[in-house]
């Protein structure tokens, strides 16, 4: 059975993890490589780096972070944030990234998704969508609008339509963030998830709103998500990945157990 994936997301600025990680006993909890290795040992199924570096000069730092992480961690690694050219995608992939997450640049130039998928394969291209529920949409027929620039700018695009177009252009996965739920810790926007997973055939990763393990279960069942992205619920130590996986398994979902009992590779 295909396992449901638990994916920690690390916000990185100029090579350092931004959101605090108060609980973890690491020498340097601000080092993305050390944190990625920690989550790898904990049983993470993938790692996502979101580069929120503002300056162009500061952007080189992420290349080094990716390179060092790929030397330490042998699970899929996704990088997103400010990627706007096939050349930059190639640079990141050569450093050891497996997938590129496209957001604002793809909204400005949708063909970037096609260009990336043609060059590197659809499995490399993740379409990240930040969606906010429209105030005036009826409860019976909700609509969501896509925002760009890290949720700062309205685009006027409908989230469902954009998801379908991203799939048509060659995206291999969708990373769907509910701006309404993000930061609330009150659960994922299940209606949004259901709407998008019902509209596309490619896997959808749910993001935004996780506060407890039940929320992840909901997103993976009622929401139809294939994977869940989690940030603060992990970073602040609300629960550990092993606990989440045990909980999901007890509730009948297939998960990849934290690997033990085969030849040890000291990761």
């Amino acid at each position, binding site marked *: 059975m*295909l*396992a449901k994936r638990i994916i920690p997301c690390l916000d990185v600025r100029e090579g350092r993890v931004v959101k605090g990680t108060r609980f973890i006993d690491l020498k340097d909890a601000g080092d993305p490589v050390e944190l990625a290795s920690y989550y790898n040992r904990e049983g993470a199924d993938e790692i996502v780096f979101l580069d929120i570096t503002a300056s162009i000069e500061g952007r080189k730092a992420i290349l080094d972070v990716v390179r060092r992480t790929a030397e330490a961690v*042998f699970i*899929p690694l996704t990088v997103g944030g400010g990627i706007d050219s096939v050349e930059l995608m190639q640079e990141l992939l050569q450093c*050891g990234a497996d997938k590129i997450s496209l957001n604002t640049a793809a909204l400005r130039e949708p063909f970037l998704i096609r260009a990336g998928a*043609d060059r590197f*394969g659809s499995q490399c291209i993740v379409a990240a969508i930040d969606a906010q529920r429209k105030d005036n949409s009826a409860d019976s027929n909700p609509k969501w609008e896509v925002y760009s620039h890290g949720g700062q700018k309205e685009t006027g695009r409908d989230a469902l339509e954009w998801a379908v177009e991203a799939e048509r252009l060659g995206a291999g996965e969708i990373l769907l963030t509910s701006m309404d739920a993000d930061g609330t810790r009150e659960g994922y926007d299940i209606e949004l998830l259901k709407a998008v997973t019902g509209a596309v055939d490619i*896997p959808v990763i749910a993001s935004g709103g996780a506060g407890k393990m039940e929320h992840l279960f909901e997103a993976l069942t009622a929401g139809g998500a294939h994977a869940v992205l989690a940030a603060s619920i992990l970073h602040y130590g609300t629960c550990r990945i092993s606990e989440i996986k045990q909980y999901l398994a007890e509730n009948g979902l297939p998960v990849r157990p934290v690997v033990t009992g085969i*030849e040890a590779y000291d990761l």
Partner: protein
Amino acid sequence: MPSLVIIDSECANLSSIYRATARAGLQPVISGDPDQITGAGAVIFPGVGSYAHAAQLLVKKGLDKVIMEVVSRGVPFLGICLGMQLLCSESEEAADKTIKGLDLIPGRVRRFPRGLPVPHVGWNQVVPLVEHPLFEGLPAGSYFYFTHSYYVDPCQSELTLSQTDYGFSFTSAIFKNNVLGVQFHPEKSGPAGLHLLGNFGKIIAEQRQK
């Protein structure tokens, strides 16, 4: 001559395979040089992306003949993902026509049927059907990382080394004499993947002693 050559198929994940094989204790070099590949003690043939593009590139660079030659010498040969698929006779990846592969393993590459989320992305269980040194020490049902839209359908069931369930059981690893192929990505499959690559290293060492 180097013991293990990773064929430079110009795909994105070459460096990941290099790092993982090195981490598993092998001594890899990445090369597209026909002489170096022909003389290798073992070969890994990686690939991601489009079947047609990759097949054309092989012919253009003359690597199709090089692969045939090195395989005929009996050295351990491991195709990964698209590399595994290219070992087969043909693919239905293009809608209007079939695309010829290397035909080292008689079989067809098919698209997953409608109704399943495609690509098949994530960690799935691999169940070996026969005992083989490639899977030695790995519990049946170990999870490996997959990402693909097509799968290999071998002409003979005895070519199937392992199966994986995605709505139905498909062939996730193949073997024929010294030729091995895995649909999943051992280089991205954590400790299980490194263990499998280490097993490939043991196969190489045994072959060298013969």
